[in-house]
């Protein structure tokens, strides 16, 4: 979600001060901010540093360690494709090609209009349903090019 730049500090401070868990750490603070606004802008690192009374560099050490933290505004929808061994054997490559041609991108990443982002995943944990894609954390099993095309179509019509 987009936060107007004038409000970013207050939104982050609110996220920091209303953490649910009793043990507040750098990690919990970063997670709280990402849960609230979807990513960690520069301000998140600075605010967390002064909130936790540590240095921005220490906060960055934690933030950059975890793959789950994003430092750029995420796109509206996230499409993840599993390319683990089972999914690959059952046609994940074709699915990926289809998605890429529909989204108009090559490789991983955001579409130019930031409507959707494509990520490869080494295992989505549902090999019995291979090939698997996940759209906005919603798993779809036994997909093929046509089904994926329909799902992507829904995104662009804002049905999802």
């Amino acid at each position, binding site marked *: 979600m987009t936060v107007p730049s004038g409000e970013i500090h207050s939104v982050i401070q609110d996220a920091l001060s209303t953490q649910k868990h009793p043990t507040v750490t750098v990690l919990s603070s970063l997670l709280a901010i990402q849960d609230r606004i979807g990513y960690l802008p520069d301000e998140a*690192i600075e605010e967390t540093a002064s909130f936790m009374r540590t240095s921005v560099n220490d906060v960055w050490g934690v933030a*950059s*360690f975890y793959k789950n933290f994003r430092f750029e505004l995420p796109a509206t929808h996230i499409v993840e494709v599993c390319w683990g061994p089972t999914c690959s054997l059952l046609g994940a490559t074709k699915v990926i090609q289809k998605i890429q041609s529909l989204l108009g991108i090559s490789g991983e990443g955001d579409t130019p209009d930031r409507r959707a982002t494509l990520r490869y995943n080494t295992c989505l944990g549902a090999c019995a349903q291979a090939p698997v894609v996940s759209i906005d954390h919603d798993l779809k099993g036994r997909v093929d090019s046509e089904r994926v095309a329909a799902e992507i179509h829904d995104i662009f019509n804002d049905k999802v």
Partner: protein
Amino acid sequence: MSSKVNLTIDGVDVKADAGANILQAAIDAGLYVPYLCYYPGMKSFGACRMCVVEVEGVRGSPASCTTPVAEGMVVNTNSSDVRDLRKGVMDLLISEHPHGCLNCHRIDLCGPSDICLRHVSVTDRCVTCPKNERCELKDTVRYLEMDLDTPLTYNNRHLPQAVDDPLWEMDLNLCIVCGRCVRACDEIRGDNALTFTDRAGRSLIGTSQGTSLLESGCEFCGACIDVCPTGALVEREHKWDKAVKSVPSICPHCPVGCRMNLEVDKRDRLIRSTPDIHSQSNKGQVCFKGKFGLDFVNNKKRLRKPLVKVKGVHKETSLDEAINYTAEMLSGKTGDKFGVLASPRGTNEDNYLAQKFARVAMGTNNINVSSSLRPELFSVMGDMLGYQAGTNRIWDLESSGAILVVSSNVTEAQNVVAIPVKRAVKSGSNLVVIDQRETELTRFATIWLRPKPGSETVLIGGMIRVIIDESLDDHQMLSETCKNVDQLKNSLWNLDLIKVESITGIASSEIQSAARMLATSSTSAFLYALETLTPNARKSCVEALVNMALVTGNVGKPSTGLYPLFGGANEQGSRDVGCVPDFLPGYRSVNDFEARNSFQEIWQVDLPEKPGYSLNQLENAIRSKKITSLQIIGDSPNFTNGEIGDFINALELLDFLVVHSTFENELTRRADVVLPSATFADKEGTYTNMERRVQILNPVLGPKGDEETDWWIISQIANRMGAKGFSYTSSEEVFQEICDSVHVYKGISYDRLKNDGIQWPCLEEGDSGTPTLYEGGWGDQRPRLSPIEVLDSPDDLSGTDYPLVLAKGRVLHQDQRPAGVSLKDKRNVISRDEVVEMNSLDARNLGITEGERVEIISSSRQRLSGLVQFTGSHKGVVYTTALFGEIVTELDQSTDPDPILKLEELPLVAVRVEKTSS
């Protein structure tokens, strides 16, 4: 005493402290175990696995740096299994490090100009690494006797070199991620300017979001460079130069007196300084001044020949002629119209002879040190306690339970002192800072008090009142030891908290908590520079601080005490040897008949009785023709920065001016004779640091021109004037005379100073010095309390044209105000809008609204612009805080031969604030 543990390492019986690790025990026993991530003085990290050993009865190969010693343990550090394991570990390590240089079979055979016979690419050759020939990684590889079958290919990270920042360079392609730099910055310096970035195979060192060090909170102390085992972190200046020798000496930039090893190349230039890890004064640390500010000794602009003014024009002449001329001119000018200003960078020997020359040859007490702006810091301590010196060791601050810092910018002025303070805070001690300016230590403060300018003494008095009222004082100290207790108590009745609150503008609850913090801790220390106080207010403020230390019983114990923070590197020593207008060597008053008599016997002349002029009186004395000739040794920023008035222009009125100088400057331009003066790196001598530690300087560079040590020049002038007692053949001989006449130096000699310094009083040959003054009791000299003096009308800094007072601060980093680093002339510079904090009433009077851009114009016509923010600031005071990175950029780009000397301090100044018409 910690208990000892017996163990066997490689068949050698070793005794180690319980709790020590095997690696430390081995190092202490003189056994070598290779290591890369471990570093003496830092916590073990266990990352590099190079120090693996075998312990009998223990499975696997534990890292010796993380395994504690145990009774009866049997350790093998060099079995073939361990050796193989280490080689395997090293193979992995260097799979990401260019290693054509590391395991080359020609490593001992190649000369610098030989062509590389190894088939490595041009960019991987050993000569392309700045640490070539002084690389710990290479030494380790050689120790491991790696086979030559290691493939020369490696995973090159292809990362760009970081070369945009001032003073240092980083090449992450050479980094082995041992983490020493990250840990040194965090554990030792408390800065956290570096961190590990990313994870697993991609992990490296860096800063938050890869920003410049200028905005990561770096203090450019170079601690990361000193611990780096590879060529990843290096100094930019003399990056490629190879040292031919390394000489230990003392830094001339501040009174901490850091001992460092100074490296010299074959062209006899000082190319690098590395702090001495065994030194008691700095424990392996230095600051930006000691690390990057010594290049002035190599400067081509250095004066190598004497200059004599003939018909208004300087002419080069021989040293002999210049000395003859000076002696001839000065012969007719003896008496109180002459004066000598010695240099704070002068050694004890230089300055002892400077005062002896003034007193014996010229018959005047007009002798001073040009850095002696705040003599009250010392003199009050002499009056109240006995010795005119700081009472405790610098590094004892690390274990102080509470610390009070008054009006001191320690990070810039006495940098290394801030390290034990920050470490104490990190381990849970309380820090109270009294300062109008935001400085690095205010960021670490438990309580930061910002009193109205000039109300510091009242604030401290109020704190003492709280301590007495709540009965938190040291009853025994007050009832049995101190004199004048009633006088102090009576003066406190004036200072009820409501009154203190209204004078200082600080809430009484804050004053109470600060006072309780300092009084209830078993060890409290007091640091003060009083940079923001007017000269009239300083005396009473030091008195108040000494009172507080005595009342809370914090004198005469380790980790307590008073630390006056003055400016000059050897200001303490200069005062010890008598470079003071009212004291003979050893703090014996010039008014004291007996003292004069004893020196008259040694020196065989009649000594003048009238005290000389203080530094602050000097300009007026010159203007009123009470001083007509001067001898000035060394440059000082105080001549031109207005601290002692318009001194530099007053010099035009003199009949005769002799200047000893290293460079031509404003001062030499006005001089009739300029004598080329040797720098700290050219001479032998001693400095006494702020903890009374006498340390020895060694000549690092060889002679190049006619420049000479100041003591030699002075003795020659005196000899040619026919004065008695100036024939010395070496600085050691001068030091002998100092030890004979200054009783606290009696047991010190050059021989005893070879290994490390000695803290005076050192009364006899076998005396190991005195880390803590007054620890052995007070004897007849009981400490004297002093009533709190509240000035009726404190000096008002502001005037009609400049009605406000500006308190400009400087910090390493501000979390929420990025530095806005941008590239200018291929170098990073800070370019951000400053914030000007103002009282809303002041602003309203000027028609200024919040967020508006204003310009601050000071009485010395300096300008500064920023955006206004209304805060709870006192009426009449405006605040602004700059980033430390600014002065580093300035130093880096300065064309001045000795820019450290000209560093701008942060006094309070009178200003007016104007709206910027846009």
